């Protein structure tokens, strides 16, 4: 699948620029880390060490990884409940992620938020939002802050195909364009909202790209399983935002290998669909490309082993971490650290 673009001169769409070897290795490394860590999360469910819900992005790693590599350290990420990868891709620690899923005090949120709200402000991971659409306007606000303060920071906002049908999507896109804000909207079209195919509930074929013109934006579709393609589009959109040319809306075509959430066996998929997409697994694609580009198998094997080692270490740390102390219940409602509503 090639990147397709319609209309408008100053495009956020990808120029065919070269990506150097180091960048490529970082892209692979990051995809490995995201993949292995989420696979571990899956194992931890099965061991009943993760309670509540959890939403894996297995198969969608190329997008988070490409942006993670392309973004400046002081840029901001806003993502969803399916945000483990996006948060980690900004540098949040694996034990912070796994610990939060397991409800341990070493978790990014000390267990207070849970899997759907991963946040690491120091790393620019400005939060995972669990109500569909809410974070799009919030990302717009961060972009307003960057514009106002002249910092050239960019807010990147990830969301799913299903999110394009909620009102907040529309309001956020319009305001971002009206104020020409440095924000990049990334729709990860994985074909399904929860269990319902996006095509069954959407008036257009490409839920994001076919709406871009409603905000005077160009229509950008990228192969979300190809980290290089996403990286190029990301660089262009980030540059456009930094140059003061306003927002972009990118639709990345992808697929989640597992169900919507922990509870979902994904029986609604037509037979053969998953298999077809597994052929296009972003890690598989990327490994093959690196091999073709002359990276030795040994280097790749080492990278894989290293990622696994990190995940193992993080798992041990998280498992050893205690549950959060009960006094945290009354902490941090307010900026003074407390929760008191009376004198």
């Amino acid at each position, binding site marked *: 699948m090639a990147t397709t673009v319609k209309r408008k001169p100053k495009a956020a769409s990808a120029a065919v620029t070269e990506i150097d070897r180091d960048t490529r290795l970082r892209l692979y490394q990051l995809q490995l880390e995201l993949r292995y860590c989420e696979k571990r999360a899956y194992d931890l469910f099965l061991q009943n060490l993760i*309670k*509540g*819900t959890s939403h894996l992005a297995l198969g969608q790693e190329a997008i988070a990884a490409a942006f993670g590599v392309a973004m400046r350290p002081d840029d901001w990420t806003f993502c969803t409940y399916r945000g483990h990868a996006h948060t980690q891709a900004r540098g949040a620690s694996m034990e912070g992620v796994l610990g939060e899923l397991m*409800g*341990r005090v070493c*978790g990014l*949120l000390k*267990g*207070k*938020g*849970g*899997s*759907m*709200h991963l946040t690491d402000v120091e790393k620019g991971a400005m939060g995972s*939002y*669990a*109500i*569909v*659409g*809410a974070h799009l306007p919030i990302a717009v606000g961060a972009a307003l802050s960057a514009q106002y303060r002249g910092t050239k920071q960019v807010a990147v906002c990830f969301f799913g195909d*299903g*999110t394009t*049908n*909620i*009102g*907040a999507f529309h309001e956020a896109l319009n305001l971002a364009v009206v104020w020409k804000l440095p924000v990049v909207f990334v729709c990860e079209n994985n074909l399904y*909202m*929860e*269990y*319902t195919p996006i095509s*069954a*509930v*959407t008036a257009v074929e490409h839920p994001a790209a076919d709406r871009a013109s409603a905000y005077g934006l160009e229509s950008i579709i990228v192969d979300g399983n190809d980290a290089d393609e996403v990286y190029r589009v990301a660089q262009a959109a980030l540059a456009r935002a930094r140059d003061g040319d306003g927002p972009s809306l990118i639709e990345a075509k992808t697929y989640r290998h597992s169900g919507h959430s922990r*509870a979902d066996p994904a029986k*609604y998929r037509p037979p053969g669909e998953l298999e077809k997409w597994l052929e296009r697994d972003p890690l598989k694609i990327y490994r093959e490309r690196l091999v073709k580009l002359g990276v030795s198998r040994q280097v790749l094997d080492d990278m894989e082993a290293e990622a696994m080692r990190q995940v193992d270490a993080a798992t041990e740390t998280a498992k050893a971490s205690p*549950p*959060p102390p*009960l006094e*945290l*219940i*009354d902490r941090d*409602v307010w900026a003074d650290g407390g*929760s008191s*509503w009376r004198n």
Partner: protein
Amino acid sequence: MAELTYRDAVSAGIAQEMRRDERVVFFGEDVAEAGGVFKTTVGLLEEFGPKRVRDTPISEQAIIGAAMGAAMTGLRPIAEIMFSDFFAVCWDLVANQIAKTRYMTAGQVTIPLVLRTANGGGVRFGAQHSQSVENWAMAIPGLKVVAPSSSADVVGLMAAAVRSDDPVLFFEHKFLFGNKGEVPDGEHVDELGVAKVVREGKDATIIALAAMVPRSLAAAQELEADHGISATVVDVRSLVPLDTRTILGEVAKTGRMFTVEENPRLCGWGAEIASIAAEECFYDLDGPIVRITTPHVPLPAADALEDATIPSVARIVETVRTSMG
């Protein structure tokens, strides 16, 4: 009598009403093909077909608006809002449109609909998927508000809600989905606005709702067994209309009132009922009215934290015991 889970009682209640009345249609996110994310609506698409049972986009305003428009023009829709927290994205349609339009039009418009939702905590879903927001609805004139605690009540109150010509917000409690209970055979129809005395006692009256009902019952047993305190437990079931007769009557009998609610501390339904008592049966009270609530914090996710935040059997026992002591 059949034994049904609270979960299955939901689809049973809806199916009972859809069989009876062609005007009843049902829609929401992932409710048809998939049978709902909580599996509360399994089988409805198969039985009633895609004209009557529909999947929607993630568009809560459109869902609620569509239910309202359809109700105004001859249908009796049931719409699902997947988690009650999401009422916040469509509250205008609920609180400003559905609740007020009949009144504003001097009765020209009738809006017979049911908005069902999964309410409440206890399942580690975190602060945006665990709220108890029945108090948001109770605060809005023009909405009826129901929250069943048992399988039989799910069916019976669902039927009453569907048959009501007024808009009803129907709060199903996530924590109860797996609970089993007897449901009367044949058509089962209950009545809105009737509280139930689920335990009779002499010393104190505990007023509870939804998941807090079984917890209050367990607490009452422990209070009796371990502390010699005999407590009445009232299942409010319906916040609007409110069965003040039963509630105040039971309070007057024991002279002590406790409310047990999942709402955060401020402005929950417990405050409302406590204030009614403080005004209307003040002279029957032998001591302070005590509310047992979630503290005024968003709900934390980790098991230990969540369990210590929502009122527990132990906290109910402890609070009643200390206040009576």
